[in-house]
């Protein structure tokens, strides 16, 4: 009989127990450690840190473990944890020209100061399942020799690696990036997003945005929905130092290093009444190594600059409200999945309405057949 909603409390406790059991899986197998996740599923950790907007490898690894590898769930966990963290202040802007790069490529120049450095990339691998990997290799002690890696920077010492856009900037061929007033950089986790949004908030929104959503939007611009004629001016990945000026000191101190991926897209621009023809920029930045995300972000950033550059808003990717309101996967998954919650009373109201409308439909039909 009428049991549907009774016992919610017991049911929840039972569901939690089942979840814990499913998460652990077969207890005959060793449990994953956070170190293993951080080391061997590093790109998952990078994605969770980026979209969770919290640079903490250990917390991200824990989130991935707790979420059973569901990365959006892990991002959600990290976001909820981030909310509770106190704020010490704002860092100085990162100087990515000073990055200790592990990877740096440009699709616009064959060679350039600092050279092209492939670094750890899937790009030129053949996507053949490597059955050799299926067998676990024995763990090696810290003293065993590392894999030989040739051509890494250590051999001839780091060479200066100016950013490609700065080279173009030197020739006046690319738009000037006017540094915004540093005090006014917004934070959409502290102030609600209002439209129209400025570029600082748009970039923050995109940096936190879902990789898949941005990828699809970026792809759509390449297929004619708001074309931006992009070139991958530069993609670089490596570590940069984070500096902070504590109020009581009054000068900058380094508080740590973070790994970031930066993408600078260079886009054609025919010029306007005010501006000469020149290249324009799209920018992408992520924590860790999230190259696909950084590239998609840069394409979408450029598309969203249509208002500023006087381009007509015709495609979804150029529509600021559409893009920014739907990019956040924690918001999206919550609202889509809330349809699992009971809607008895609303459905009851609709049932009643449909019955009423059907009754009047029947009456009308009976009347007209008379």
């Amino acid at each position, binding site marked *: 009989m*009428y049991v549907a909603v009774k016992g919610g409390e017991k049911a929840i406790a039972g569901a939690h127990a089942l979840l814990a059991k499913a998460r652990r899986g077969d207890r005959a197998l060793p449990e994953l450690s956070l170190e293993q996740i951080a080391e061997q599923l590093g790109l998952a950790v990078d994605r969770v840190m980026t979209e969770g907007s919290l640079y903490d490898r250990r917390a991200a690894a824990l989130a991935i473990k707790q979420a059973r590898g569901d990365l959006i769930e892990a991002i*959600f966990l990290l976001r909820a944890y981030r909310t509770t963290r106190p704020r010490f202040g704002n860092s100085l802007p990162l100087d990515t020209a000073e990055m200790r790069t592990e990877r740096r490529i440009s699709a616009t120049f064959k060679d350039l100061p600092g050279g092209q450095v492939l670094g750890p990339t899937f790009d030129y691998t053949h996507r053949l399942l490597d059955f050799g990997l299926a067998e676990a290799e024995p763990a090696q002690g810290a003293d065993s020799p590392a894999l030989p890696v040739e051509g890494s920077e250590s051999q001839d010492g780091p060479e200066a690696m100016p950013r490609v856009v700065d080279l173009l900037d030197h020739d006046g061929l690319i738009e000037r990036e006017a540094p915004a007033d540093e005090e006014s950089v917004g934070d959409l*986790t502290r102030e609600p997003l209002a439209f129209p949004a400025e570029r600082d908030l748009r970039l923050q929104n995109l940096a936190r945005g879902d990789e898949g959503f941005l990828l699809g939007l970026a792809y759509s611009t390449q297929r004619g929905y708001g074309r931006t004629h992009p070139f991958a001016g530069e993609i670089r990945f490596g570590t940069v130092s984070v500096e902070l000026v504590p109020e009581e000191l009054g000068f900058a101190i380094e508080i740590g290093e973070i790994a970031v991926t930066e993408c600078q897209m260079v886009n054609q621009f025919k010029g306007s009444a005010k501006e000469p023809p020149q290249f324009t920029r799209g920018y992408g930045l992520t924590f860790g190594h999230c190259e696909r995300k950084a590239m998609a972000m840069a394409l979408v950033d450029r598309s969203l600059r249509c208002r500023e550059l006087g381009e007509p808003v015709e495609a979804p990717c150029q529509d600021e409200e559409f893009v920014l309101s739907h990019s956040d996967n924690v918001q999206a998954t919550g609202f889509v999945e*809330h349809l699992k919650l009971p809607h008895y*009373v609303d459905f009851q109201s609709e049932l*009643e*309405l449909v019955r009423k409308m059907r009754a009047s439909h029947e009456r009308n039909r009976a009347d007209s057949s008379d």
Partner: protein
Amino acid sequence: MNETAPIRRTSALPESGDLHSDGVGATASDATAADGAYNFAFLDEQTKRMIRRALLKAVAIPGYQVPFASREMPMPYGWGTGGVQVTAAIIGPEDILKVIDQGADDTTNAVSIRQFFVRTTGVETTTETGDATIIQTRHRVPEQPLQEDQILVYQVPIPEPLRFLEPRETETRTMHALRDYGLMHVKLYEDIAKHGHIATTYAYPVLVNGHYVMDPSPTPKFDNPKMHEMAALQLFGAGREKRIYAIPPHTKVKSLDFEDHPFEVQRWSSCCALCGATDSFLDEIVTDDRGGRMFVCSDTHYCETRRAAGHVGLAAAQGAEP
């Protein structure tokens, strides 16, 4: 709103939640009630102050959607994060909390939100509508009239009543500012032209204090008249959409209608099968796969109170107790 003014418990900083210390943080499993890992009611005091400011503004401009810096909460968006933040901002240690979903205290999400507040505040909870100082609700207004010392907190998915007529926030904010509600009236008129009546049964738009058209959240229109001149303060929180709005006590709330098509609420041909009530919102329960149905009160406390007072419905009389 005497609960909101003083901050009666100051922050117990989440030191023990530090992931880099050995304990790997406060995870869901170590359930120390009102646990010290988080501040009272989860949110930090700065955030509560920000939400209280938004609430004060909302009370001062009834029905106006106040943007607020909604936080990421440990439950999903769309599952009551707005209501939870409002409750967290107004709750004090002496409050008595009731949480309902679909009118019931024991639906899973109501249980989950109640447990969250028990864990983070240690406050007393109740299912008695009359005993609660704060009632957080999703989709219903309790049947029992509320009093002046009570606060009703609604969870709101889409706060903008004009959203499905105009998707752009920039447009709808202008429309509200100009009281430009022609689009809404045209929609209701088209309903009448097409169906002979207004085909909106829940989230039925209301005009608050003669100015703002407001979404009452997806409560059935049955509950709209209860919002009018309600003695209790009504607060609405939309977390994902980052909006707070309010109806102060004893404020005019009018469901939109036309002179020749006045607003009316749902009616049932049956009464509650358990308590025999004829004045409550009834849920339809499917009892078998041969078309068997029974109707019972959606407000579980109302139904239980009536049964305790000796009222008996048809099913209960036949011995089919739940």
